[in-house]
């Protein structure tokens, strides 16, 4: 009951005319960013975050904007996947498998509307999941002390390190570079200058926005030039736009199953939308038995990955909101946004900032209804954005990124650091280093160090405090399992394939 009261308060926050307007703009921008090949949710959120900050939006409105953009991107990714055979973001890779064949058969309209409904189902199930589980998790996590917190962050980093990319050293290096950069600046406990090299601008540390823009906007621009090729013509929309009852009946359980599975996969730190959509697509394909057209244009083939994709995107907000430990690159950026407003995410967030938390959850409900309404009748408007020429898009992204960085301190130094970080990010990405651990390390670095020092202060330097409580031990075991487990499983898997062959 208490939850419902709080949720009602959340709706009161999210439904003010101003915040509704912000959500609407965010949904629209998010869908556009999502459908542009190359730009995904993380780029969208990264580019818009500094703007929201510069506009001096209050924290709840800024978060509503970012969440609406995030939700919108997950809807947008499917449009280019279906019409161009190019996923608009990583989560939409699986959608191309059946979406594009459907479009070639002249069923682009039904595929788009079906995937919109699937996205909506996934997002709604996941938002209900947040309402049901997040307060419980937050209550449980209040028992965490500094030692448990430190280990929890180790767990989050190793989840991401274990699941993303193929090489363990690469994932760890990315994460450690992030952690290292987070130590630049004055140490808040002792006043010692660390790695500032006598540069005044570095005394406050490297601003979060500079890192985010460098990693996700500047390096993306450089990569876009590398991957530049003639854009294929989108398949024209013709024929009926809506799916029919038969198609809906075929896909309805697929959607629900994938939504529930996607939510739980999303809650796990590290396993994001990409893994969720791939797993759900594969299992639906297996469950379909013989009577299916998966791979050649099956409605269930667009419904499953889209429902899972959106559900896991929303599910990954749970660890960020309740534990203060984001499980994905995008939620790491959002958590950075919270810290810009001097709000520390974590279990106490639900008690200290109910307006923000419940306003955000309520706005997810509202944003998804808006997105459903936008994405079915207005689909033709969004399709027009597919023909934005890349030579206009890239300078636009560059200019908006500079505006965002400049808005923080208004100095040239930050801009230059941002461009240099972009070059580093480009090199890392070309060499197949995962970038999400980098940003997660940077966001968590300060909190990790503070909790480590606090834990050791309490125990007077006795290092055993990190391994003393059952929660801490359990988290250590989980961290090691997550770091090593996926790779061992993959190795066994490949060995089995070899043996079968």
């Amino acid at each position, binding site marked *: 009951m208490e939850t419902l009261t709080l949720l009602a308060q959340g709706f009161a926050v999210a439904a003010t005319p101003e915040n509704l307007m912000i959500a609407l703009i965010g949904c629209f921008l998010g869908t556009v960013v999502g459908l542009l090949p190359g730009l995904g949710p993380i780029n969208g959120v990264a580019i818009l975050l500094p703007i929201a900050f510069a506009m001096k939006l209050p924290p709840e409105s800024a978060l509503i904007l970012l969440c609406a953009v995030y939700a919108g991107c997950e809807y947008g990714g499917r449009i280019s996947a279906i019409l161009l055979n190019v996923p608009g973001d990583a989560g939409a890779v699986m959608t191309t498998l059946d979406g594009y064949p459907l479009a070639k058969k002249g069923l682009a309209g039904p595929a788009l509307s079906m995937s919109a409904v699937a996205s909506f189902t996934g997002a709604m199930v996941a938002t209900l999941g947040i309402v049901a589980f997040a307060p419980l998790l937050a209550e449980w996590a209040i028992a965490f002390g500094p030692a448990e917190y430190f280990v929890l962050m180790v767990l989050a980093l190793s989840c991401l390190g274990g699941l993303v990319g193929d090489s363990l050293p690469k994932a760890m290096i990315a994460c450690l570079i992030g952690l290292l950069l987070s130590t630049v600046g004055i140490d808040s406990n002792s006043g010692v200058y660390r790695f500032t090299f006598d540069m005044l601008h570095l005394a406050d540390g490297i601003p979060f926005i500079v890192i985010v823009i460098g990693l996700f906007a500047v390096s993306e621009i450089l990569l876009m030039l590398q991957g530049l090729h003639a854009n294929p013509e989108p398949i024209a929309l013709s024929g009926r736009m809506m799916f029919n009852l038969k198609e809906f009946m075929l896909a309805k359980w697929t959607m629900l199953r994938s939504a529930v599975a996607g939510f739980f996969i999303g809650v796990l730190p590290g396993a994001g939308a990409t893994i969720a959509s791939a797993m759900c697509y594969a299992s639906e394909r297996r469950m379909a038995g013989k009577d299916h057209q998966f791979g050649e244009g099956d409605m269930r083939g667009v419904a499953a990955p889209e429902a899972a994709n959106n559900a896991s995107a929303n599910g990954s907000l749970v660890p960020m909101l309740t534990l203060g430990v984001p499980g994905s690159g995008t939620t790491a950026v959002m958590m950075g946004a919270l810290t810009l407003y001097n709000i520390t995410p974590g279990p106490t967030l639900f008690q200290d900032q109910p307006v923000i938390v419940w306003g955000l959850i309520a706005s997810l409900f509202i944003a998804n209804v808006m997105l459903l309404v936008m994405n079915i009748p207005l689909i033709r408007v969004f399709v027009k954005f597919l023909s934005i020429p890349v030579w206009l898009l890239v300078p636009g992204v560059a200019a908006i990124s500079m505006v965002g960085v400049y808005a923080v301190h208004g100095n040239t130094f930050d801009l230059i650091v941002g461009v240099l970080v*972009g070059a580093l990010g480009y090199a890392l990405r070309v060499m197949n280093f995962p970038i999400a651990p980098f940003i997660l390390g940077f966001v968590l670095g300060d909190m990790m160090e503070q909790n480590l020092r606090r834990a050791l202060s309490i125990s007077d330097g006795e290092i055993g405090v990190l391994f003393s409580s059952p929660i801490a031990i359990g988290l250590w075991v989980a961290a090691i399992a997550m770091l090593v487990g996926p790779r061992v499983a993959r190795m066994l898997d490949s060995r089995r394939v070899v043996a079968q062959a």
Partner: protein
Amino acid sequence: MSERIFGGVLVLISLVGLFIARGFEAPFSYEPVGPKAFPMIVLALLGLFALALVFGKTEKTAWAPGPVMQRIGLLFLVVLGYALLFDRLGFVIATALVTLPVARLFGASWKQALASGVGLGIGLFYFFDRLLDVALPTGLWLNAITG
């Protein structure tokens, strides 16, 4: 090969970093863990994993072919120039100047590049500075004229 070289650079960074971090001493301290422990742990781990990268199994890095790499380098320099000139020239001029080569690199014709430069410079300035109230630099040259 690039991975091994990068790994080597990281090993160097971690050694130099460890050397620098050794000198982080708090003038007075009331906690058992000072300011140098955490950076040193991170640097040590970074060095270890970098060694693993140098001597471990690596994959071939797919760098872009030479001509493309040159264009990417050029794009990087243009964006760096943008960062340097952003404040000095002001948003409108810097954006217009930078859009021209960037749009050309991405395959626009001269006419398209010129039009998008002017359009983006003026349009985005109006949008951010006037509409959204995000203050943008008008440029030092303008200040010199208007005093």
